[in-house]
C-alpha cells in the first residue's frame, strides 16, 4: 500500500506545483498510515529527484528514459500506471496542470480508479473517501465521494501549502516497459513562452480589462507584473479583441486561477469573469465606477482612474520592493 504522487519533470527540475502535491500526498499518507512514493519520468539528476524527500516522499521511483522527456499522455499514463500497480497504490496524486489533466482520466480508466479533478483541500477519510473540489467554475464546491478501491486526486495548484520538513529520499532507477508503440501522438515543436510567469501557476496576478482602453496602455500592467513578479491576465473582451493573447483570458470560459493576490484593473466583474478568479485569496479592484460588481468580492478597492492610479501604485510598489 502506498500513496503514489506524480511529480512533473520540467526539463530536469521541479515546479512548485510538484512540491505542493508531494506535501499533499504526504498528509494523505499520514491519514492512511502509509508512505509516499514519488514518480519521476524522463531525464533528471538523482540529486534533484531525491529532493522530493524534503516534501515528504519516502522514496522516488525514476524512469530516466529520454523518450519520456517530452510529455505524451499515453506513454506517461502507461508508465505511471505501471508504477502505481507495482507500489500497490491506494491513492494517486497529480497536479491539475495541463499535463495532469491529460494524464489523470487515462490513468483513471487504466486503474479502474475514481478521479476527483481539481481538488482544493485534503480528503476526509473515515469509512468513505471524500474530497472537496470546485464546481460551476468556482461558483460553488462539491464534496465528491470516491467509490473505488484505488483513488486518483488531481490538486489545483496553489491549494495546498508546501511543507518542507523531511530529508532527501532514496532514488530507485527503474526501466519501465515503454516503447515507441506507446507514443500515440508525435510532438513536432514545443513553443515555451519565456520571460513570462505561467498564469496557471502564478501566486500573484495582475489583470486588466476593457477599462485600459487599448493594447498600447498595457505597459503599465506589464510594469506592475514585473515589479511584483506576477503573471498577467485579462478579461474575455480584451482577448477577443486581440489586445492580449487568449492564454491570458480568465473566467468561466477562460482559465480558472487561484492566486494569493489578484489585482483587477478596469474590469467590471461580470459573473463569468468572477467565476474564474473568485478563488483568489486576496482581491484588489481598481475601477472608476464605484458600483462595479468587482468591489462586491474585492478585499481592497480604489475607486479611481487606472491611468492616474497605476503610475503612482507602480512607484509605490517599486519602492516597497527595493526596501523589502
Amino acid at each position, binding site marked *: 500500500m502506498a500513496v503514489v504522487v506524480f511529480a512533473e519533470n520540467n526539463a530536469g527540475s521541479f515546479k512548485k506545483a510538484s512540491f505542493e502535491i508531494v506535501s499533499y500526498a504526504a498528509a494523505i499518507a499520514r491519514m492512511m498510515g502509509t508512505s509516499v512514493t514519488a514518480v519521476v519520468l524522463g531525464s533528471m539528476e538523482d540529486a534533484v529527484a531525491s529532493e522530493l524527500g524534503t516534501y515528504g516522499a519516502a522514496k522516488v521511483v525514476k524512469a530516466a528514459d529520454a523518450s519520456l522527456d517530452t510529455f505524451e499522455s499515453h506513454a506517461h499514463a502507461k508508465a505511471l500506471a505501471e508504477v502505481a500497480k507495482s507500489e500497490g497504490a491506494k491513492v494517486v496524486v497529480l497536479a491539475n496542470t495541463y499535463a495532469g489533466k491529460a494524464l489523470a482520466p487515462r490513468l483513471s480508466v487504466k486503474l479502474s480508479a475514481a478521479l476527483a479533478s481539481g481538488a482544493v483541500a485534503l480528503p476526509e477519510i473515515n469509512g*468513505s473517501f471524500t474530497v472537496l473540489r470546485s*464546481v460551476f467554475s468556482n461558483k460553488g464546491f462539491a464534496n465528491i*465521494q470516491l467509490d473505488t478501491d484505488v483513488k486518483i486526486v488531481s490538486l489545483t495548484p496553489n491549494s495546498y501549502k508546501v511543507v518542507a520538513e523531511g530529508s532527501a529520499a532514496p532514488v530507485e532507477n527503474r526501466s519501465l516497459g515503454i516503447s515507441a508503440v506507446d507514443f500515440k501522438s508525435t510532438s513536432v515543436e514545443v*513553443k515555451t513562452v519565456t520571460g513570462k510567469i505561467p498564469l496557471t501557476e502564478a501566486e500573484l496576478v495582475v489583470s486588466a480589462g476593457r477599462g485600459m482602453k487599448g493594447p498600447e496602455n498595457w505597459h503599465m500592467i506589464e510594469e506592475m507584473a514585473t515589479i511584483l513578479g506576477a503573471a498577467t491576465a485579462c478579461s474575455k473582451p480584451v482577448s477577443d479583441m486581440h489586445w492580449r493573447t487568449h492564454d491570458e483570458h480568465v473566467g468561466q470560459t477562460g482559465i480558472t486561477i487561484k492566486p494569493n493576490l489578484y489585482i483587477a484593473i478596469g474590469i467590471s466583474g461580470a459573473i463569468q469573469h468572477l467565476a474564474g478568479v473568485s478563488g483568489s485569496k486576496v482581491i484588489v479592484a481598481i475601477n472608476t465606477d464605484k458600483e462595479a460588481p468587482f468591489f462586491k468580492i474585492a478585499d481592497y478597492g480604489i*475607486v479611481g482612474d487606472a491611468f492616474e492610479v497605476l503610475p503612482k501604485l507602480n512607484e509605490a510598489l517599486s519602492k516597497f520592493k527595493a526596501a523589502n
Partner: protein
Amino acid sequence: MKILVCISNVPDTTTKISFSSDNKEFNKAGVQYIINPYDELALTKALELNEAAGGGTVTAIHVGQVDAEPNLRKALAVGADDAVRIDTAPVDGFFVASEIAHFAKDKGFDLILCGRESIDYNGGMVAGMLGELLDWPSVNVITSITTSGGEAHLERDIDGGREVLKAKLPFVGSCQKELTEPRIPNMRGIMMARSKPLLVLPAATNTAHTQVATYAAPAPKAGCKFLEPSQVEELVQLLHTEAKVI
C-alpha cells in the same frame, strides 16, 4: 470524415449558483440551460473540418435527460446531421465517457471532439477517459486542427506554452478557446433541424465511480476596504502587513 461531437447541457453562464438547504442538490429552478461553450467550439470545428474535406457527417451525442433536447435541436440547427441522446441521468465523467464509448465503439468514427471541460462540473475528464476506453489517442485543449491523409496536425495549450503535434486518426480531441468562433444557427438551419433525426437510446453501462456527497457555497467575503486614489502607499502596506500577500 465521420465525426462525433459530445454535447453537455449546462447552466447559462449568468446563472447564480445555489444549493438546496441540506446541500445535497443544485437548485435547478429557473435555470436556463445552454450547450456547453467549449462543446459549441467542438461542433463548429467538426463542421469546418468536413467543409474543408468536402464532405462527411457530424453526429451530436448527449448523455442525459429529455430536457436537453432543445439544445440537441440547436446543435442540429447549427449543422449537425443527426443527434443521439442516451436517456439517463449522468452521474459523473466516467459514467458519461462509458456511455459514449459504448455508443461509438463500432460506428467507424474518424474523430470524436469534446469540449475542454463542462462549465458546470469542470471535470475535464471525458475526452481522456473516452480515449482510454476506446484505446484511441486523446489530445487535450486543442487550439488548432487540420486533417489530411488520415492524420491530424494540431496545436494545443501546454503548461507555459504551446505544442505543435501530429496524431493519427481516429482520436479524441478536447477543444479549447481560439480553436474557432462558435456558429449561431440561422433560420434555414432551425427549419431543417426539425426534421433531422434525433435518436434516443437506453443507457448501456450505467456505471459511476463517484457521487456528490454535499455541495457548499463559497465563503462570503468580509467586504471591501476602500482607499482613495492617493493612498497607493497605504494599499501596498496593507497588502504586505494585513493581507500578507506581497
